[in-house]
């Protein structure tokens, strides 16, 4: 089966406002998708709905993952199936170190202590996090440190569908390179791994071989196309041109 994720006519309300308005999107195995769109277009809501965040309940539509409808499944079960989301703004958690949470995630996956130790060493090395491992989660971290730490915790879940919410915003060039190469090496380890990456600027696209880009405006996908062309158009003209997009019916 080629399709990993299929989202059909998904609508989501937050309070009395409809944020997602009949959204359709599908992701094949091995596909890496950039999701672009202006602030407030519903990109974050979309990924939080996919992971099963109880604050975002679908009003209608279906989420099919690996052939099964997961739209009513609780978050913990979706994660077991292989979905994972890296937050744009993860919360500070005092008294919980990065290492502690990394170990707990791996313990949950059933890894032994020594396997866990090796994996943590590997990712903290790739993402230059060694010096942060024993610090309380996100307390006093810089913007780049937050992105790198959150990416490590997300990758340690070994997702089949990796979802990242703006891994490249507020990040300097060095950090962007670290984050980008960690994502692309994770995805290249297994051809079946897929990703949806929200990006404002498309910068992350320089480091990751994206297969498709989508533009979301006002709770709908309005445009689809080649990531390089789409990103360079948006960087040049803003989202203006996307409204006349001809790549999608």
């Amino acid at each position: 089966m080629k399709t990993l994720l299929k989202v059909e006519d998904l609508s989501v309300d937050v309070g009395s406002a409809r944020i997602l308005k009949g959204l359709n999107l599908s992701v094949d195995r091995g596909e890496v998708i950039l999701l672009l769109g202006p602030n407030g277009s519903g990109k974050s809501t979309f990924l939080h709905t996919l992971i099963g965040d109880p604050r975002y309940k679908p009003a209608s539509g279906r989420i099919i993952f690996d052939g099964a409808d997961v739209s009513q499944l609780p978050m913990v079960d979706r994660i077991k199936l292989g979905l994972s989301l890296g937050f744009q703004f993860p919360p500070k958690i005092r008294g919980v170190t990065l290492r502690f949470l990394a170990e707990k995630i791996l313990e949950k996956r059933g890894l032994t202590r020594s396997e866990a130790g090796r994996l943590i060493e590997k990712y903290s090395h790739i993402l230059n996090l060694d010096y942060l491992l024993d610090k309380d989660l996100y307390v006093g971290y810089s913007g780049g440190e937050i992105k790198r730490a959150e990416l490590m915790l997300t990758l340690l879940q070994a997702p089949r569908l990796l979802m990242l919410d703006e891994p490249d915003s507020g990040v300097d060039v060095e950090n962007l390179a670290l984050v980008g190469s960690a994502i692309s090496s994770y995805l290249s380890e297994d051809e079946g791994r897929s990703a949806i990456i929200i990006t404002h600027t498309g910068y992350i696209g320089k480091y990751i071989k994206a297969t498709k880009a989508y533009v979301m405006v006002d709770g709908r996908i309005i445009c689809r196309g080649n990531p390089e062309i789409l990103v360079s158009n948006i960087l040049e003209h803003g989202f203006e041109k996307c409204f006349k997009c001809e790549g999608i019916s």
Partner: protein
Amino acid sequence: MRLREIRDALRRRALSALSKPSPYGLDIDTSRFTAGLGSGRLDLEDYIDAMESVGVDPKERDRSGSYYQVDNIAAYYSSRYKGLVVKPISEALEDEDILDYYWRAIPVDLDKYTAAAFLYERDGYYIRVDDGVDIPAPIQACLLLRSPSLLQVPHNIVVVGEGAKLHVLTGCTVAREKPGMHIGISEFYVKKGGLLTFTMIHSWSRGMHIRPRTSVYVDAGGVFVSQYITTSLVDSIQMYPTVYLIGEGGSAYLSSIIVGRGSSHIDVGGAIELKAARSTGEVVSRVLSMDESRIVSRGRIKGLVRGVKGHIECRGLILSDGSYIDAIPELEARAYDVQLTHEAAVGRIAEEEILYLMAKGFTEDEAKSIVVRGFLQPKLPMLPRQLADYLSVVMERIAYAL
């Protein structure tokens, strides 16, 4: 002769204070409890679990010495170091020169609890470390209450000599669920450049009323660190230990971790008086309320001379609808160049943190445990490694048992 005179004077003051209530906590009628010696017999085998639950190792592994008391009588004591003296206060009064320390840090007529403690006084530990002696392993004290309805009144004195180092671990517990009252009088003295860390773990039960009275005097360059932990059911606890930094550059760190359960009334504070130049103090508390428990968490720092610094940090988590937490930090700045700060925050577990952890693959209960464990994770300055490790394990156990 001198002791008798001192005691007569103390007795007169105590008698005059027998009905003087404490300004804090529930008012308890001490006459409801039996004033007797109880039993000094210690059948170790029967109490191993109780002792271990408060960090006391009956085999004394990794310990520099021990003092065990059952009810009001010393049952066992030992010292494994030269320069470390451990004995019951009743003996120390006979053969040690302790009158400069005996009821000198705490006024006997402070309230009816100190008065009762003096009038029924019998034992408690006297621990002294000679000048310059560094005792790396902790000394352990276990105060066990066995007889029902007894008033237990240990009087403890610790003297840390100049440049000496000592770590005291005190575990107080009750043999079985029984009513009773415990008034612990603790007078500690840290001489110039000395270090005393004091870790106290309470594991009481329903029916118990606890009124420790603690004062600490710290001389120039001395350091006093206190860690207090109470997590079990109890009817009431009220304590407000006070540290007086009387010498230049002395410092104090008071930390308490309080878990309120059942219908416990807990009123715990920490006070530091910065009385000499460049002295510094910190009062830190982590308070967690469950069931119908009522908790008051106090902190008070007085800056009395120029060039001193103090900070109070109080964090509370309310885990049930029927419980409450009052955080009362007080700063008193009585000199020009004084820096005193506080931060207090009370609330429930942040939903945002729980949802985040659930998105990392944990169930809601697992996520809560992780947050609570982090919340209770104490900073443990100056503690020897084995003690710090032990306390981390204790906190882990509490968090996952909630």
